[in-house]
């Protein structure tokens, strides 16, 4: 492996390298295939490169393209090779590659430091190093070594990871439909036929649940993280509830996007953690999960209390609690206990169909 600074990324502490790359941006000529398309070369695909792409795809890393090429001709060749489905938001044209990379990052809503760029041309690697230094750069000759770097090893590989590309693809179709929708936001939400499913966490949900506690910031009531083992212990306790929520609509699934951890008492239940992924933050389902937990507590003859910790990034969750009728009843520094006004009606989100499993003890 070369240590030339032109073929590595910025200096990042080892602890932050693991799983940093969320999308790999590929050159085409003499990288994905042999030869130069516009010079009439055969452009046979490099099977070892496709193998790397498929492997990374299977662990949830996305792929895109930054190629200086004729767009129609390059897409035609990719179609012949049966590879078009693998790439999201490809940038094929004559703009600088740093510009293509910035557009891809914006389209995927990820940071530049979550991108790796693979090319065979020293000039392109240097241009990217200069203009977008956060990007991890890989010379294609080093590819076999590079994919063993921790940057390409996600912290979690879950069912969600395997479906990530499809979810992003669905998301761009959905966003397009939303842009073109003529009508109110409520009409649009209604047109989505959303189904929100809340179930007791089973073991198969726990990796994703752990991931959610680490990755969710804005709609996170305490910022506390829980390990797989902690969650596994909690989910089988009689005095606790661990609920996970998922959402689907006419376009497809958003995956598992919410979590509620409740400690059940006789007089009141304590909602220790409530979180909702930023993927669904514009869908109004945070309130639906909160209201569901409130309803379960009420049916058990208990009022609902909630822990809240101001993390500096979760004011949205604070406002969500306030708008759901919660008031502060105790405070210790940044740590707050909220309680819901028991007389308040429970609103129903009319545009979401709620599916739940019956109350029961989770199977160990």
């Amino acid at each position: 492996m070369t240590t030339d600074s032109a073929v590595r990324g910025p200096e990042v502490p080892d602890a932050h390298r693991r799983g940093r790359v969320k999308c790999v941006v590929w050159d085409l000529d003499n990288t994905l295939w042999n030869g130069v398309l516009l010079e009439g070369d055969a452009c046979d695909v490099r099977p070892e490169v496709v193998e790397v792409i498929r492997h990374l795809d299977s662990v949830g890393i996305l792929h895109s393209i930054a190629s200086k090429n004729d767009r129609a001709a390059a897409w035609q060749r990719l179609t012949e090779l049966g590879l078009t489905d693998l790439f999201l938001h490809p940038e094929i044209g004559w703009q600088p590659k740093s510009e293509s990379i910035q557009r891809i990052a914006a389209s995927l809503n990820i940071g530049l430091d979550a991108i790796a760029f693979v090319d065979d041309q020293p000039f392109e690697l240097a241009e990217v190093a200069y203009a977008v230094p956060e990007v991890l750069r890989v010379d294609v000759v080093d590819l076999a070594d590079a994919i063993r770097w921790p940057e390409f090893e996600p912290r979690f590989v879950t069912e969600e990871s395997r479906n990530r590309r499809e979810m992003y693809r669905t998301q761009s179709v959905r966003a397009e439909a939303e842009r073109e929708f003529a009508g109110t936001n409520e009409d649009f939400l209604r047109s989505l036929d959303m189904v929100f499913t809340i179930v007791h966490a089973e073991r198969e949900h726990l990796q994703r649940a752990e991931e959610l506690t680490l990755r969710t910031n804005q709609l996170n009531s305490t910022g506390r993280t829980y390990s797989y083992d902690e969650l596994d212990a909690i989910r089988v306790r009689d005095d606790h509830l661990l609920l996970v929520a998922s959402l689907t609509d006419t376009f497809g699934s958003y995956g598992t996007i919410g979590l509620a951890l409740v400690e059940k008492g006789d007089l009141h239940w304590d909602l220790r953690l409530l979180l909702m992924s930023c993927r669904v933050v514009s869908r109004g389902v945070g309130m639906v999960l909160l209201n569901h937990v409130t309803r379960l507590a009420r049916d058990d003859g208990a009022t609902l209390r909630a822990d809240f910790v101001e993390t500096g990034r979760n004011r949205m969750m604070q406002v969500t609690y306030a708008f759901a009728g919660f008031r502060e009843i105790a405070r210790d520094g940044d740590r707050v206990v909220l309680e819901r006004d028991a007389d308040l009606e429970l609103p129903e989100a009319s545009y979401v169909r709620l599916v739940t499993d019956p109350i029961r003890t989770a199977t160990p």
Partner: protein
Amino acid sequence: MDIRQVSGDDITRQILEFLSAATGGTALAEDQDYIAEGLVNSIQAVELVTRVEQRFGIEVEVSDLDLDNFRTAGRIADFVRRKRAAAAPDTRDG
């Protein structure tokens, strides 16, 4: 516009305009409980609070984050007037 020149009725009108835009064009009445009707999601709620702070030059503190201050456009306007009265400099003599 200087925020001090915003009159009482303007406050309600501006809040209604913003609420209507935030809910994608739904026409709302001053006393309509748009929260109970599920018309705002978490993003719109936090945008609303931020907009009220910026537009009317007040700070919504944690203790102000109460459903009763926000559940209708009229209540938000009342809340804004209370906050501004409390923040107004004391100009009395003596």
